[in-house]
């Protein structure tokens, strides 16, 4: 099992969710994060003073998937989150040692 963590542009999150839904993914955990990268931040001005804002709003999606489907999931995210402009984000994949469904205590692939 893999844990896929995708950092995407907030306005693309809904797209990604729908696409994942279509390929049968039923569980996602989402959170608001701030990202710093190649995409330049911006400068804000208040009362004549400059404020550099390095971190831009991004959305983080975490999805636990079985070993079989994870490539397809990565692929789907990459395609639907993409706008082609700098700052589109990253996908990170880590190994999951174990997954538990709290309600039932089920473990492993069944718990996903």
């Amino acid at each position: 099992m893999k844990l896929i963590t995708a950092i995407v542009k907030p306005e693309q999150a809904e797209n990604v969710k729908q696409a994942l839904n279509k390929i049968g993914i039923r569980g996602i955990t989402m959170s608001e994060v701030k990202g710093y990268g190649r995409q330049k931040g911006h400068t804000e001005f208040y009362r004549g003073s400059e404020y550099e804002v390095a971190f831009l709003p991004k959305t983080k999606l975490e999805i636990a998937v079985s070993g079989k489907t994870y490539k397809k999931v990565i692929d789907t995210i990459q395609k639907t989150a993409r706008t082609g402009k700098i700052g589109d984000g990253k996908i990170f994949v880590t190994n999951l040692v174990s997954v538990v469904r709290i309600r039932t205590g089920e473990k492993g692939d069944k718990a996903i």
Partner: protein
Amino acid sequence: MRYLLLIISLVLVGLQTTSAFTAETVTLNSGNTAWILTSSVLVLFMTLPGLALFYAGLVRSRNIISTTALCYGIAAVVSIVWFVCGYSFSFSGEGKYFGNFAKLFLDGVTVKSLSGDIPEILFVVFQMTFAIITPALIVGAYVERIRFSSALIISVLWIIIVYAPVAHWVWGGGWLAKMGVMDFAGGLVVHTTAGVSAIVIVLMLGSRKRFPGGIEPPHSPILSTIGAAMLWVGWYGFNGGSALAANGNAAMAVLVTHISASAATVTWMIIDWSRHGKPGIVGMITGSIAGLATVTPASGYIGPMGGLILGVLSGGVCYYSVILIKTKFKIDDSLDVMAVHGVGGMLGTLLAGVLATEAFGGLGLGKVTVGAQTSVQIIGIISVALISLVGTYIICQIVKGLGGLRVSEKEEIAEGLDFGSHGEREYNI
């Protein structure tokens, strides 16, 4: 016999007229009283919650409770000082430089005492709301680092040492009033005192630790906008109420106030737009406050064209004053009390005489020449700035001796003043 009757009747008519006239001046006018009651409500509303929100939105989120508590706490303690001695020191007696002790604890001010054709007690209340907002304005200079207790003590001393004398000079029949200085609603008494004292406190207190590089942007422009809107609305009572009557003078003061605020808003917006490509709301509201502060001393003397001129000027002059003080001189007058209120108040005071002339649609200066009046205005500005400077310097020295002005560095940088000084946190969502 007929002549006799005629004479008698004429005399009687005369007496009647006289007594009618006298009666008019000694009888309470309920319409004027209603408006000054309302104006008192409005000016209090400017501080609570207006100014508190305006300032709270501009600081970082860990200091929002601290900023609000400063305004709130100052309002409470200053009210008591006003009742105990502030009113007496400002408005009792005929002294040239100071009031006297006759009305300590409002002694002798009864439900029936009149001040003009409104209750004297109402005049006490109306003036109290001005005494509240003035030290609260100064809060903007020292937020995000001052000790709460020090700020309260400074404010109390400041009312006695700086505010009361100046109020007496200008509005209480003191030497500036006798010279004929024009300050309708507080260009000198409120804004010049606040602005100059702000700078003095900042110089003695020091900048925020991360100033200028690491300061965060205003954490909630909307909170500040709510506050600014309340200030704008309340200013109708601030300037309109200073007519101490519900009449054409009050209405004109309201109109010119509004026009100046609007013009300054637009001016600041245009400068921001052309400099940075975008008009920000923080700029717009700052412009409004600049326009409001600037028109204050002139508001009862000028016409709408004068208001427009003051608005445009204040938008430009205060804009560049902010940059001058903060960016060039690196003085951390954190929320620009001097640049917006001080500079605005002085500018309006300076131009009050000129714009009051009929040439600018004002109500006229009577027999005084523009030059003479403007000289008086300048004397007013200099003397008020001077007492603010000296008085506030002394106060800061005293309070420094009492236990210091600043919170710890850890509190300032790490935990924030909300938790550090008040043990509370905003946004427990």
